[in-house]
């Protein structure tokens, strides 16, 4: 018996996270009151997480087309043409809310989810990256979250056998209550086998494959769309426990079926479970679907249709096939010891029907369900920006440049990540050419000479100061990391992590950040092919700083021509490409020395950026460089020290060459540690100097030689002279817990 609602109460609506006006919109569209199940289903699909009601109108700004793009946003993941008849499929996704509650399982199931988005498209996942943000590491709770998340990412990725080759890690006040866990996955598929999640053919059947359905994660979608509060604790069964072994079996079986003509469509189950996946599948294909919940295998007894439809049990997949092919497909799954049930049938008209055996329990127009959520515009006018904090009253520490270098490189944000990535299998697949620790990871593509350079980037100190500008920098920095390997940027995925968008300042930051991504991607001619939006990273009125994570993939035609970030040969020259400025706004130096985030973020000249990247790419292609490393957090001094550490060789830098002379020695930290954009530290054989100057002239980029490679010390004449071993020791210890 279905319960008809005589008008939903406020409590009913709160439970499904719908507003009164959304409810009225629903009733109007439906021409009647929904029953309780229908209300729950609409609540899940109209949640921010599933409907993108706030962000969708803004995402339209992004450039999504380009000669390489095979699949832009709208499918489970984006895809680009990388030549050789192959497609590279990738996407980034957040699992912030679940990770805040149970770090291990939250992060693990986040990895599981993004993997499914990739192999649903028929692509074999070849690389994972994790982009993580926590509060200050010296707090026990942050250490607990950090440890749990790292263990969870490793626990899932290591077990399933996909290497975790890169990512990023920041610690900042703003994530103290809401940590961020974003995971990116990259896969490869022959273009002809690219599989879509578009149902077709009325009468065709839908198989539910993989894990049995349990009560876990019910309301996960709406849960990720509300502010975390004390009551979240009561919803704790929302935590799911991942089963990477089951996912491995599911992945292999699905890959076996990629491009198989018997498979009409493939769709993973993610947010809002069976409900979300079946609705999207049918909606994309312009047809309808009828689900019989009684046919879904359960892990528990006594589950209601509501629970079956909204369960977010992991490791499940839908396959659409002709009735005649179902049995033979099931045999493929059985070979991998996977159970499958026929749970639905495709309808000709666009209805979303749910039955419990013979009893109809839900009948909704699909369009209203998937596309009907009223979109949300700006909650108010653009607020005036608070004036940037005044640095005048803040004491400047009396650090010598050498002391500053050691403090920075031993800080949690700049120190060695080895203690993290050694917990991830980053080599399975026999393809990781550039291991974690450098700029972008470089992964060889099996059967070709191709390399894919992959990086994630996003410095939220800049976006906190200026969302548009910071987002542009995030795109440029990701591109710089890719370019430093010699690869040409191909496309972008992005994860937008924001606080409560019902506040005007947050909404406008979101707006500006998307505009910034769009501007930078347009200028650099890098399309956006996929992404994810995570809002409501806000607890008890404390929200995160706007955080844009850019995932980028670049293509290197021949891995043997790659460039790495470490200095290589004794006697090589060191050069700086790009401007020498003294911009400390938003820098890590400012964080450590002054304890603030203030002033304008570093200036960005996007045209110069394009030229600098063009210069570096051509220099690498021409075989002129022995190393290339982008200047990011910590500025020139840190970039040089990092190139020394990676190459296990020292360097000597002349102060005059930095063009500063006295000023630097007198403590101008800005030159050494300022984070001016569009810069690379490169090294090369003496003989290449003339050609590099010529090349720089041709690209109109500033280029100066700074010094030379060699010895076992890191020296900037007159102000820094420290042994590489000492630098290594503080760098290595940055994340290690001190008793």
């Amino acid at each position: 018996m279905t319960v008809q609602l005589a008008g939903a109460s406020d409590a009913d609506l709160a439970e499904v996270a719908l507003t009164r006006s959304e409810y009225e919109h629903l009733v109007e569209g439906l021409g009647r009151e929904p029953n309780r199940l229908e209300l729950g289903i609409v609540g899940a699909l109209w949640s921010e997480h599933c409907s993108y009601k706030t962000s969708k109108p803004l995402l339209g700004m992004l450039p999504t087309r380009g000669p390489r793009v095979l699949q832009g946003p709208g499918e489970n993941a984006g895809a680009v043409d990388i030549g050789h008849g192959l497609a590279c499929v990738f996407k980034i996704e957040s699992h912030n809310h679940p990770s805040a509650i149970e770090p291990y399982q939250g992060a693990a199931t986040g990895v599981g989810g993004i993997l499914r988005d990739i192999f649903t498209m028929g692509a074999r996942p070849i690389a994972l990256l994790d982009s993580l943000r926590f509060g200050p590491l010296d707090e026990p709770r942050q250490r607990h979250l950090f440890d749990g998340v790292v263990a969870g990412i490793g626990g899932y990725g290591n077990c399933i056998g996909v290497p975790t080759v890169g990512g990023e890690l920041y610690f900042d006040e703003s994530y103290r209550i809401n940590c961020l866990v974003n995971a990116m996955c990259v896969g490869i598929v022959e273009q002809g086998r690219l599989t879509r999640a578009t149902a077709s053919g009325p009468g065709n059947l839908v198989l539910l494959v993989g894990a049995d359905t349990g009560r876990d994660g019910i309301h996960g979608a709406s849960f990720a769309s509300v502010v975390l509060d004390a009551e979240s604790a009561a919803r704790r069964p929302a935590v799911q426990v991942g089963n990477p072994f089951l996912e491995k079996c599911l992945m292999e079986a699905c890959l076996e079926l990629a491009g198989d003509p018997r498979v009409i469509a493939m769709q993973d189950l993610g947010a809002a479970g069976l409900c979300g996946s079946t609705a999207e599948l049918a909606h994309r294909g312009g047809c309808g679907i009828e689900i019989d919940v009684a046919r879904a295998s359960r892990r528990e007894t006594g589950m209601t249709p509501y629970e079956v439809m909204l369960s977010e049990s992991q490791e499940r997949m839908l396959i659409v096939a002709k009735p005649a092919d179902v049995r033979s497909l099931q045999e493929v799954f059985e070979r991998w010891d996977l159970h499958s049930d026929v749970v639905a049938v495709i309808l000709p008209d666009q209805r979303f029907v749910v039955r419990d055996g013979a009893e109809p329990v839900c009948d909704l127009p699909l369009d209203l369900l998937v596309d009907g959520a009223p979109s949300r515009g700006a909650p108010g006018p653009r607020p005036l920006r608070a004036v940037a904090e005044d640095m005048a009253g803040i004491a400047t520490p009396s650090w010598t440049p050498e002391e500053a270098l050691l403090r920075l490189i031993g800080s949690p944000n700049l120190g060695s990540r080895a203690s993290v990535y050694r917990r991830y299998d980053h080599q399975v697949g026999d393809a990781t050419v550039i291991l974690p620790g450098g700029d972008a990871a470089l992964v060889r593509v099996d059967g070709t000479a191709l390399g894919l350079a992959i990086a994630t980037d996003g410095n939220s100190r800049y976006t906190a100061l200026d969302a548009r500008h910071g987002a542009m920098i995030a795109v440029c920095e990701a591109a710089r990391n890719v370019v430093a390997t010699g690869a040409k940027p191909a496309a972008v995925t992005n994860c937008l992590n924001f606080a409560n968008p019902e506040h005007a300042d947050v909404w406008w930051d979101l707006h500006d950040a998307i505009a910034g991504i769009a501007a930078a991607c347009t200028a650099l001619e890098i399309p956006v092919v996929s992404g994810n939006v995570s809002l409501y990273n806000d607890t008890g009125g404390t929200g995160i700083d706007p955080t844009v994570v850019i995932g980028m993939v670049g293509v290197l035609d021949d891995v043997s021509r790659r460039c790495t970030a470490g200095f290589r040969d004794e006697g090589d020259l060191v050069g700086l490409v790009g401007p020498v400025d003294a911009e400390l706004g938003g820098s890590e130096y400012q964080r450590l020395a002054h304890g603030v985030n203030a002033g304008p973020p570093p200036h960005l000249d996007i045209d110069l950026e394009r030229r600098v990247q063009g210069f570096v790419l051509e220099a690498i292609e021409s075989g002129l460089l022995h190393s290339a490393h982008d200047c990011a957090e910590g500025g020139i001094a840190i970039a040089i020290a990092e190139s020394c550490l990676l190459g296990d060789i020292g360097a000597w830098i002349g102060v005059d060459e930095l063009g500063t002379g006295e000023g630097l020695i007198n403590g101008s930290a800005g030159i050494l540690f300022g984070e001016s954009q569009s810069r690379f530290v490169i090294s090369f054989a003496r003989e290449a100097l003339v050609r590099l100057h010529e090349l720089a002239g041709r690209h109109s980029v500033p280029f100066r030689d700074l010094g030379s490679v060699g010895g076992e010390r890191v020296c900037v004449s007159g102000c820094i002279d420290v042994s590489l071993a000492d630098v290594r020791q503080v760098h290595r210890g940055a994340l290690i817990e001190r008793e």
Partner: protein
Amino acid sequence: MRFGIAVFPGTWSDRDCRHAVELAGHEAVMLWHKDRDLQGSDCVILPGGFAYGDYLRAGAVARFAPLMESVAAFANNGGLVWGICNGFQILCEAHLLPGALTRNSSLEFRCMPTWLRVETVDSAFTAGCARGDLLQVPVSHGEGRYVADEETLAMLEREERVAFRYVRRDGSSAGDESPNGSMHDIAGVVNARRNVLGMMPHPERACEQLLGSSDGMRLFESVATSVSGSGAMPVGAAL
């Protein structure tokens, strides 16, 4: 020669092993865990992975696979069986090798380069090396701490059945650089007949300079030489 590569549902080094075998110029056949036929393999590799999920104990369930019956019979007949990582764990669980592999002493998964010292050349797998040779081969495991009782350890040492030991880059004793805290720094052991080798490090990940090391290739070549008397010319060996 022909290497058979076992594939359990949770195996993930199978393709890497095939890549290494083919790079060495040999034939690889994949052996499905539900089958019994070893397809004329000259050497069976049990590769890395999490065979059946391995949640209870690594290798615990895999030893009962139909394929493992054939592998055990093959080993007992003197056939070459090479367990790598999860394969080593399976061989210990199946009692084809002594001892057990337990959680790393750090309690953390470890993926990192290690240096191995070749401790015996009296096996098909190491005959191509010299005793004391150092090989750079990565590890990647959470349960690789080799343990055995004192008697077993004494026997392994006496019979020179420790195949590899973890050492530092300069060849000195691993000390706190051990990736897992194994007793006697053991990275690999052979059985009494010396036709079964188990090792935690991944030689198939060390077959090309492009990936950081080609030292692992020496083990594949050694097996091939032992089997055929003369190893096939590796593809690209002339480069």
